[in-house]
């Protein structure tokens, strides 16, 4: 050990300089997330074993704020910050908890009740995403249906853009929105194959959709009830083969004396398509 001169601080200025250096302490990295956590502020994340494989889920006190694919927690934190211009922190003890299954963070079958934080989005974007949430599992709707249902029938393209940027894919089921002509369309979270995969897992007859697209069938009707539906509507699926009739447009169905289903409301989308 070095020998210290006994009067090292005999001169006050050097003593004060040494004191000043103590002011350069950096707060521990745990301080900020800890305080935010106590105050119920800020976003935190965990890993989820989703139907499409491991994804990261971020949430804050308003609800779930993002679902993203990422190579690592660090990569997720960077993309989140880039997208939302605010940081996200790992949950305390994230590593110990590991990847979670849905049952470990959401009560089963309660997807509609999961609160979402859509606060950073425009009213139009929020309307599109809230409407998307209404599409039941196992069914699909065209982009034009969303546009019409939210009172913006001409904004079909804009609906597509909003869904392509859906901050909370899987949980807000943008994969259940397909092209008006019955084609599956694109999917930001892993491409068309992933979209087909998740729809099939939900019980959608994807091959059947393609067949209909090729034969230009847009609606199913029942000659017993004289009602027509989107092909994946739960009421359309109940129509037995001998009573099933096919329509390629809403006009064709109306002219045949059929009325639109009140559950899947195909008329609205049909009008959109005509415009």
């Amino acid at each position, binding site marked *: *050990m*070095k*020998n*210290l*001169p*006994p*009067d*090292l*601080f*005999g001169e*006050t200025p050097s*003593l*004060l300089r*040494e*004191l*000043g*250096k*103590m*002011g*350069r*302490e*950096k*707060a*521990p990295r*745990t*301080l*900020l997330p*800890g*305080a*935010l956590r*106590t*105050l119920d*502020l*800020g976003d935190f994340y965990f890993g989820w074993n989703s139907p499409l494989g491991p994804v990261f889920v971020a949430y804050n006190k308003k609800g779930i704020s993002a679902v993203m694919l990422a190579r690592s927690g660090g990569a997720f934190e960077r993309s989140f910050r880039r997208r939302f211009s*605010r*940081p996200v922190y790992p949950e305390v003890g994230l590593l110990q908890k590991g990847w979670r299954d849905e049952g470990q963070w959401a009560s089963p079958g309660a997807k509609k009740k999961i609160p979402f934080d859509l606060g950073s989005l425009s009213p139009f974007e929020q309307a599109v995403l809230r409407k998307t949430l209404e599409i039941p599992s196992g069914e699909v709707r065209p982009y034009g249906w969303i546009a019409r249902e939210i009172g913006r029938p001409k904004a079909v393209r804009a609906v597509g853009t909003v869904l392509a940027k859906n901050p909370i894919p899987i949980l807000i089921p943008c994969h259940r929105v397909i092209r008006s002509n019955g084609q599956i369309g694109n999917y930001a979270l892993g491409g068309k194959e992933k979209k087909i995969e998740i729809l099939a897992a939900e019980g959608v007859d994807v091959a059947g959709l393609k067949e209909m697209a090729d034969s230009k069938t847009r609606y199913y009707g029942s000659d017993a009830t004289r009602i027509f539906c989107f092909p994946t509507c739960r009421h359309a699926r109940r129509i037995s083969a001998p009573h099933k009739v096919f329509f390629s447009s809403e006009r064709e169905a109306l002219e045949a004396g059929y009325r639109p289903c009140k559950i899947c409301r195909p008329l609205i989308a049909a009008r959109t398509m005509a415009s």
Partner: protein
Amino acid sequence: MEKAQRARKDWDLSLALSGNVDGNFEKLIRTFQDRLYSFSLRLTNNRADAEEIVQEGFVRAFRALKAYPPQRVEGIDLNPWLYRIVLNVFRTRVRKAQSRLFSFGDSSLTSGKAEEAAAGPNPEEVAEGGEIRKQLEQAVASLPERYRVPLVLRYVENIAYSEIKDILKQPEGTVKSNVHRGVQLLRENFSMMNRRKNHEESAS
């Protein structure tokens, strides 16, 4: 110059807070956490305690900001206000610790573990040239609180007397003479510690 800029930024932040506490509080933490932590560290001389105190300080600040009307939030001079909150959290803890039956020195707060951590320099923590620093930290920690707090605010935190008097709610003259006395005591303590150390070393 730099100081004026900082004051301006603090004012912008209190303005932003008056409009939206939730949305701007993280920025407040980012802005002030380093200063408040180094202050708290000199009050406690223990890292875990220092972090806890600052964290509790931020929680108190948040609740206060939520409770105040916007005009009042806008008028807060954040820097002295936050230092004062941290100081109050520290004092409350010391009082609580003292009211328990154990005897505590002025410099350590909570458990025996904390005292241990404060006393013995951890060999891994002592970097090259860290010996002097460690001793000086000890010397600061051993000062009575009435000298230590103003001295730390003035020379560790580099705050002007005109602001310290607001943090401590004392007349400026009192602050100055306590700082002066603190420096004197510190020099005495420090050279005494050094002499003892050198004596031990030459004896061994």
